[in-house]
């Protein structure tokens, strides 16, 4: 019997399908969303970076422009002092004033590392620098690009330089114009070297160290102009990774961005923007993980949802399975009980209004029908067993009957064989017996004719021979009578009269007292008189023989149950011992010194042929009664066919 918590396969199937149905969309949608989000994030991130790059590119340009303007302003203010002086004192004074002016500028703007005042001849008139001695050597700018470009185009912006091999610097130059003349007259060129560390500082503020985002300004030759990490700048070969510079510097567009894979396998999201006029590129990068930092959160949230859904699904499916399988389990329990043949105590089943309810209903009908059928079967089985027992009894009875019949047949066959032999022997003996008889007669007659002195002993012996011949002939007759097979020739006769005829001619010795006790109804029988006479004679003869000292012989007739006639021959002899009693009707059984043992066998044979029965009642010392039961003749004459055997038995009293 399954415990209540045990769930069958159905529950697991429910679980499986519920999970599949609920989880598959979540997984697909969730991960699609994540994927879409990734792209969105990536784009967003790239866009942000690009904006930052563009912004910083502007800032860089502004930075450079600012200092260019400062330089221009300074050049404009220089005009008064830059006017040609005739006097060297004036010039000296002017230079001194100019020098103070440049100093003031350098003090005001820390980014200026050097400022030089160059006249039209390319000679350096003033040189102010932060790390210069009191009187630095003056240089000639005549062949310098800054000098020439500034004069030709009105301004000069140089390329990245390394001040003292470390600080990224930029050379700027503007012409010094005399605004008092029309058109303004060029007086010289003001050159300046500005430190670009400020850019790094600004980048650093925008993209602080320790954050994953990095930003840099790269010159067209690949060297770093500025970097959000200032330490990077001060390296001798301050460059970005080659993969990055390869991408960034070969772009034709102003700005852009994308995914970059480094040689060490790292993935970056990078964006760039060109700085106007300078050919520099602002580059902003971010590790892809940082761009996607929202993704793990989304993933974990999705997983959480999954876990929740799984938990809820399991509970739900178990509940549903339980709900669905509960009646099915009940049905199964009921079916188990049915299969064990228990029709009582079928578990209660709710007949809900659905298929399972229908099933339960059908099941109940089925169990009811099964109970009826089983009842019928059991009944039929009992009937069958009863019938089988009856049949067995009948078979046993028939077997016994057959056995008896077989025994009877064997006996009959044996008797027939004996009879045949007896007949042949008897017949063959009769001829010699006849010859002996004839010869004895001849001798006796001859001797009697000769008369005179015959030895009396001869006469006696001749008598003995004659007597023995008679005896032998009697035996032969008895045997032949017993073995003779002739058809029965019954006639209808009254039994009292029939017996009276026999008694009338029977040679009773004088010491026997014959008593008749006839039924006054004088039963009518349908019998063969010759055979029945022989049988009665044998009984009378035996009775006489067992009473050699005299006695009473009683002949009785009776009617029994209106169907049977009984002829009894009662003697007052010594009775029959029990061991002899059971064999007295057997052929050739005799207790006499001389006798064929066929007398009672003939009686039984004759009575059997008349569908009758013979038995004997005996009491030692008092005598025996032989009783012959014969069926009464039917009113129409003839022996009633199949008349039941009378209840007769041998008794020793």
């Amino acid at each position: 019997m399954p415990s209540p918590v045990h769930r069958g396969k159905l529950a697991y199937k429910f679980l499986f399908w519920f999970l599949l149905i609920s989880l598959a969309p979540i997984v697909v949608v969730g991960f699609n969303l994540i994927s879409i989000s990734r792209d969105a994030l990536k784009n967003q991130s790239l866009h942000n970076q690009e904006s930052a790059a563009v912004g910083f590119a502007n800032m860089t340009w502004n930075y450079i422009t600012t200092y260019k303007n400062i330089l221009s302003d300074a050049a404009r203010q220089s005009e008064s002092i830059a006017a040609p002086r005739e006097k060297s004192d004036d010039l000296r004074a002017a230079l001194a004033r100019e020098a103070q002016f440049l100093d003031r500028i350098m003090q005001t703007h820390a980014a200026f590392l050097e400022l030089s005042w160059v006249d039209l001849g390319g000679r350096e008139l003033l040189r102010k620098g932060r790390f210069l001695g009191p009187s630095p050597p003056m240089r000639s700018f005549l062949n310098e690009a800054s000098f020439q470009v500034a004069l030709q185009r009105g301004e000069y912006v140089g390329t990245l330089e390394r001040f003292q091999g470390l600080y990224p610097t930029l050379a700027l130059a503007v012409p010094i114009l005399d605004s008092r003349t029309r058109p303004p007259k060029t007086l010289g060129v003001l050159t300046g070297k500005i430190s670009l560390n400020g850019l790094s500082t600004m980048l650093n503020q925008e993209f602080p160290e320790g954050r994953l985002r990095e930003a840099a300004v790269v010159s067209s030759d690949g060297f770093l102009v500025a970097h959000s990490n200032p330490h990077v700048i001060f390296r001798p070969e301050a460059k970005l990774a080659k993969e990055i510079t390869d991408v960034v510097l070969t772009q034709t567009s102003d700005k852009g961005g994308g995914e970059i894979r480094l040689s060490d396998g790292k993935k970056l999201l990078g964006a760039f923007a060109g700085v106007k006029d300078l050919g520099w590129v602002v580059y902003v990068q971010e590790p892809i993980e940082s761009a996607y930092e929202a993704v793990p959160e989304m993933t974990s949230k999705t997983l959480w949802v999954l876990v929740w859904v799984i938990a809820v699904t399991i509970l739900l499916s178990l509940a549903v399975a339980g709900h669905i399988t509960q009646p099915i389990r009940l049905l199964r329990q009921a079916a188990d009980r049915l299969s064990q043949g228990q029709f009582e105590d079928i578990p209660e089943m709710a007949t809900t209004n659905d298929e399972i309810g229908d099933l339960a209903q059908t099941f109940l009908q089925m169990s009811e029908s099964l109970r009826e059928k089983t009842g019928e079967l059991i009944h039929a089985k009992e009937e069958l067993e009863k019938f089988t027992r009856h049949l067995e009894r009948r078979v046993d009875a028939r077997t016994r009957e057959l056995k008896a019949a077989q025994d009877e047949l064997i006996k009959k066959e044996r008797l027939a064989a004996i009879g045949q032999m007896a007949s042949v022997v008897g017949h063959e003996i009769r001829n010699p017996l006849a010859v002996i008889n004839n010869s004895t007669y001849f001798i006796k007659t001859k001797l009697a004719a000769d008369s005179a002195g015959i030895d009396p002993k001869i006469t006696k012996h001749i008598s003995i021979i004659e007597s023995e011949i008679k005896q032998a002939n009697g035996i032969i007759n008895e045997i032949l009578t017993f073995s003779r097979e002739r058809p029965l020739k019954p006639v209808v006769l009254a039994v009292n009269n029939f017996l009276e005829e026999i008694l009338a001619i029977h040679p009773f010795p004088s010491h026997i007292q014959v008593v008749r006790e006839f039924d006054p109804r004088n039963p009518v029988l349908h019998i063969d008189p010759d055979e029945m006479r022989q049988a009665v004679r044998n009984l009378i003869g035996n009775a006489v023989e067992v009473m050699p000292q005299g006695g009473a012989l009683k002949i009785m007739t009776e009617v029994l149950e209106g169907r049977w006639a009984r002829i009894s021959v009662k003697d007052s002899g010594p009775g029959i011992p029990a061991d002899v009693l059971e064999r007295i009707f057997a052929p050739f059984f005799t207790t006499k010194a001389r006798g064929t043992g066929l007398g009672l066998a003939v009686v039984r044979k004759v009575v059997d042929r008349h569908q009758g029965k013979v038995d004997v009642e005996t009491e030692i010392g008092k005598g025996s009664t032989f009783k012959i039961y014969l069926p009464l003749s039917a009113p129409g004459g003839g022996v009633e066919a199949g008349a039941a055997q009378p209840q007769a038995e041998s008794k020793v009293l």
Partner: protein
Amino acid sequence: MSASKLLIIDDDAHLRESLAESLELDGFRCHQAGTAREGLDKAHRLTPEVVLMDIQLPDSSGFQICSTLRKASREMVLIMMSGRFLSAEEKTQGFELGADEYLTKPFDIAELSVRIRQLLTRNAAR
């Protein structure tokens, strides 16, 4: 009264002789035959008053002889002998064929003599 002529037909020589000689002591003149053919032959030649015949003979049956002889003579005493009991049908048949008496062996010769004489007297009246 002259001695009656008697023919005994039986295949058993001892029986024939013992019977013939015993009956001769009683005053019959006896002839014998061992077969049916010889019996019929002697019956024709000797014309016996009495014929005793066994039912079973090697060449024929007593019934046949009886029938033949009865056709030849109405007076002749015909006695049949048998070593076995005859059924009622056989007896009836024998009497219908003309037999006067039926004997089952062995039989008492004194009684037989008396019976023969009775039958001779009876048949002579036919």
